[in-house]
C-alpha cells in the first residue's frame, strides 16, 4: 500500500497475530500449505552436498553483485539504453509511481495489466494508478484472486495461500457475473483465465517485476508459471518493469544457478514453465513485442541496508519465500498479521529499511530465532543474526553508536532497559548471583504461582530445593 509516512504497519501486530492464531480454519490452511511446500522443496534437494555447493555459489554470486552494485547498475543502464530500454531511477515509492504515471499519461493509457510483482505491491502501484483513474489489473491467478477480494497478498510467491478452494469458489460466484459455483480447481482456473484473456488484448500497458537484471547484456529475466508474464510483456504496446536496485547480476551465466535455487526453493519445481529473457522493445521488422520498454529501478530504503556490512546481506534475497515456508511463526499467523508487504522472516529484515525501524520493529521480535529460515535460505542470508541486530537497533540508546538506522531506538523503554541492566548486574557479579539464586532455592515455597505469560500456558517454573553448586559442594568429602 502506498501509505503516508506516519503509517505504522507493525502497530497492532500483537492483536493481529493473536487473532490469526485463534483462527482455526486459517491455521489449518497454512499448516497444510507449509507442509506441502516443505515437502516439495525437500524433494528437490535430495543431495545435501549438491545443495550446500549450490547455496554457496548462489550466495557468492549475490555477494559479488552487491559488492559491485554501483558499477553494475551503471553498466545495466548503459546496456539497456543501448538496447532501446528506457531506464528510470526512483528513490522512493512516490517517485516510482510518478514515473509510471508519467508514462501512462503520455501514452494515454486507461488500462494496465500486471504480471506478478512484489515491488509493485511495495510501492502501492495499484492504488496510485486507481487514484489517477487508471485501472491496474492483476493477471497472475493468485494476485487476481487477492485483488478480486480487495486483499493484500499473504505470501510473496503464493498470494492466495490463505484461501481454500471453497473460499475462492464463493469469491468467484460473488464477484464475476454469470459464474456457477464449482470447487473444481481446473474449472476455477479456467474461469479466471477467461476473464483475464480479454484484458491482455485491451491493456495499453503491461507491468512486470524483474527477477534478475543482467548488467553485461542488458537483459531482464522474468520467472513465471502461468504465461501471463509473457503476455504482459509482449502484448500491450508499452511494457514497464519495476524492480529494486539489488536485483542486478553481472553476467548471464550468473542467472542459471540463481534460477535453479529460486524455483527449487520457492515451489519445489526443477524449472518453471516460463523463463522470459527480455532484451528490448520490438525492433523494425519484428512482428510482436511492445513498442516501448521501461525499467524503473527503485531504492526505497535499500541504500540504508547496503551501507551496513551485516544488513547488506538482506539484499542478497531472491524472493523465493522458503524462509516463510519454514517459519514456525509464519505457519501459525500467516502473512497478513505482519502488516507489511513482505511477511515472514524476510519481511522482518527488509521492511525496516522501507518503512523505518520505528514502524516495523515488532516483526524483528516475532521470531524464536530457531534458525529454520537461515538454514533453507538459498543465498545464505544470516537471517537470525540480522534479526538480533535489528533488536539491538530497536532498543539502542538514541545517539549511541548502536543506533544507526531510521527509527533506531524506537522500542527502548526505561523499564525494560532497567530490568536488563539489573539482570546483567546479577549474572556478572558472582556474589549477587549466589545470593539471589540461593534465595530462590531456599524460598522456593514462596515462588509465585502466577508467572505472567509463562503460566498462562504452562505450569509454573519452580527452583529446585538445592542448586547444582550446592549438590556439588555436598558430595565433596
Amino acid at each position, binding site marked *: 500500500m502506498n501509505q503516508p509516512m506516519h503509517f505504522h504497519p507493525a502497530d497492532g501486530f500483537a492483536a493481529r497475530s493473536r487473532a490469526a492464531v485463534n483462527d482455526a480454519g486459517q491455521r489449518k490452511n497454512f499448516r497444510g500449505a507449509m507442509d506441502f511446500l516443505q515437502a516439495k522443496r525437500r524433494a528437490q534437494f535430495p543431495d545435501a552436498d549438491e545443495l550446500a555447493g549450490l547455496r554457496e555459489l548462489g550466495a557468492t554470486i549475490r555477494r559479488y553483485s552487491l559488492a559491485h552494485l554501483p558499477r553494475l547498475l551503471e553498466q545495466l543502464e548503459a546496456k539497456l539504453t543501448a538496447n532501446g530500454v528506457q531506464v528510470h531511477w526512483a528513490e522512493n515509492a512516490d517517485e516510482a509511481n510518478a514515473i509510471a504515471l508519467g508514462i501512462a499519461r503520455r501514452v494515454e493509457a486507461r488500462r494496465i495489466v500486471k504480471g506478478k510483482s512484489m515491488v509493485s505491491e511495495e510501492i502501492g502501484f495499484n492504488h496510485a494508478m486507481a487514484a489517477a483513474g487508471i485501472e491496474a489489473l492483476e493477471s497472475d491467478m493468485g494476485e487476481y484472486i487477492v485483488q478480486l477480494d480487495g486483499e493484500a497478498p499473504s505470501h510473496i510467491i503464493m498470494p492466495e495461500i490463505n484461501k481454500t478452494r471453497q473460499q475462492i469458489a464463493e469469491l468467484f460466484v460473488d464477484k464475476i457475473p454469470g459464474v456457477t459455483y464449482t470447487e473444481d480447481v481446473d474449472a476455477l482456473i479456467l474461469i479466471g483465465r477467461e476473464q483475464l484473456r480479454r484484458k491482455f488484448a485491451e491493456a495499453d500497458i503491461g507491468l512486470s517485476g524483474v527477477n534478475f537484471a543482467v548488467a553485461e547484456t542488458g537483459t531482464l529475466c522474468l520467472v513465471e508459471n502461468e504465461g501471463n508474464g509473457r503476455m504482459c510483456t509482449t502484448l500491450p504496446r508499452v511494457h514497464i518493469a519495476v524492480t529494486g536496485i539489488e536485483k542486478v547480476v553481472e553476467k548471464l551465466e550468473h542467472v542459471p544457478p540463481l534460477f535453479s535455487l529460486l524455483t527449487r526453493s520457492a515451489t519445489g519445481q526443477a524449472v518453471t514453465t516460463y523463463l522470459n529473457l527480455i532484451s528490448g522493445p520490438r525492433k523494425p521488422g519484428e512482428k510482436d513485442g511492445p513498442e516501448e520498454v521501461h525499467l524503473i529501478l527503485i531504492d526505497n530504503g535499500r541504500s540504508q541496508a547496503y551501507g551496513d556490512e551485516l544488513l547488506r546481506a538482506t539484499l542478497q534475497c531472491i524472493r523465493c519465500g522458503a524462509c516463510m515456508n519454514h517459519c514456525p511463526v509464519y505457519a501459525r499467523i500467516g502473512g497478513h498479521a505482519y502488516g507489511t508487504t513482505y511477511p515472514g522472516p524476510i519481511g522482518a529484515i527488509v521492511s525496516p529499511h522501507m518503512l523505518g525501524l520505528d514502524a516495523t520493529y515488532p516483526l524483528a521480535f516475532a521470531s*524464536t530465532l530457531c534458525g529454520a529460515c537461515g538454514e533453507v535460505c538459498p543465498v545464505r542470508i544470516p537471517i537470525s543474526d540480522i534479526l538480533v541486530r535489528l533488536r539491538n537497533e530497536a532498543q539502542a540508546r538514541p545517539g549511541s553508536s548502536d543506533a544507526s538506522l531510521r527509527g533506531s531506538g524506537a522500542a527502548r523503554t526505561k523499564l525494560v532497559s532497567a530490568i536488563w541492566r539489573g539482570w546483567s548486574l*546479577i549474572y556478572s557479579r*558472582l556474589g549477587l548471583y549466589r545470593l539471589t539464586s540461593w534465595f530462590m532455592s531456599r524460598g522456593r515455597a514462596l515462588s509465585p504461582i502466577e508467572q505472567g505469560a509463562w503460566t498462562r500456558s*504452562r505450569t509454573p517454573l519452580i527452583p529446585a530445593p538445592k542448586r547444582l553448586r550446592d549438590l556439588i559442594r555436598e558430595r565433596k568429602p
Partner: protein
Amino acid sequence: MEPGHGLARNYPAKPKNIYLFATCLVDQFAPGAGMDTIRLLEREGIAVHFPEEQTCCGQPAHTSGYPDEARAVARRQLGLFPEPWPVVVPSGSCAAMMRHEYPKLFADDPALLAQALELSERVFELTEFLVHVAGFRQADLGPACTVALHTSCHARREMGSHETSAALLAGLGRVTVVQQARVEECCGFGGTFAMRHPDISEAIVSDKVASLRESGAERVVSADCGCLFNILGRAAKLDEIAVSPAPTLVGEHIASFLWRRTGGAEQ
C-alpha cells in the same frame, strides 16, 4: 541444507580433565541433570571441574537485543576456563552461544575476541562430547521402552548435536526411538519470545505436545532444559485444564536418562 551440515569439527583425544559449564537453568531448576552429567563423565574416567564463578552464558540478553548487558555477563564466563581442557555444556543452546555468538559479541575487542575464539574451539555440547570425544559405550540395563528425542534448534542447526543425541539413544539396546511429526520444528520457547508473544508461543508448543503424544513415546528426552520446561510445562497445563486428560507426557534431560539406563542409581 541438512541440519548440521557443514558443522564438522575436529575433536580432541579423550582428556583426563574437563570443565563443566552447567548453565543457569540447570543450576537453578534442574540440578539433577547437572549431577547426572557429572556422573556420566566421571564414569568415563574424566575428572569434572566446575568453576564456582560461573553464572549464565548471557544468551537471554543477547537474543533480547541488549548486547552490552549480554557482553558483561559473557565476559565473566570467558575467564573461567584457564586450563586448555574441553568445556562441556549440557545444553545445545548455551553451547552454541559460547561457540558461535561469543566471537560475534567480542568482535570489536581484539583481546577478548582472541579469548572468545580460543574458547569457542573447545566448547562441546554434552552428547557431542560423549560420542566424539569420550567414546561413550555403556550397555543398556533398563527395561524396554520407547522414547522421542526433541533437539533444540540451536543444538540441531548450530552444533549438529541432534545426530549425537540420536546416536547415544541408538546405542541403548532396549530403547526404541520413535519420531514425532515435524521433528525439526521449534518448540516455541525462544527465550523471551515465550513471554513477548505468548499466543504464538502457546500455539507452537501445543502442536509440539500433540505431536509428541501422537508419537506414542513413553517419554521425551532432550539435551536442552529450556525446551523441556516449555514442552512439559505446557503438557502439564493442558492436563490441568482438560476434561479427560491425555496420558501424561513425561520427560527428562538426556543426561539423566542415559545415567539411569546404563546402571547409574537414582540419587
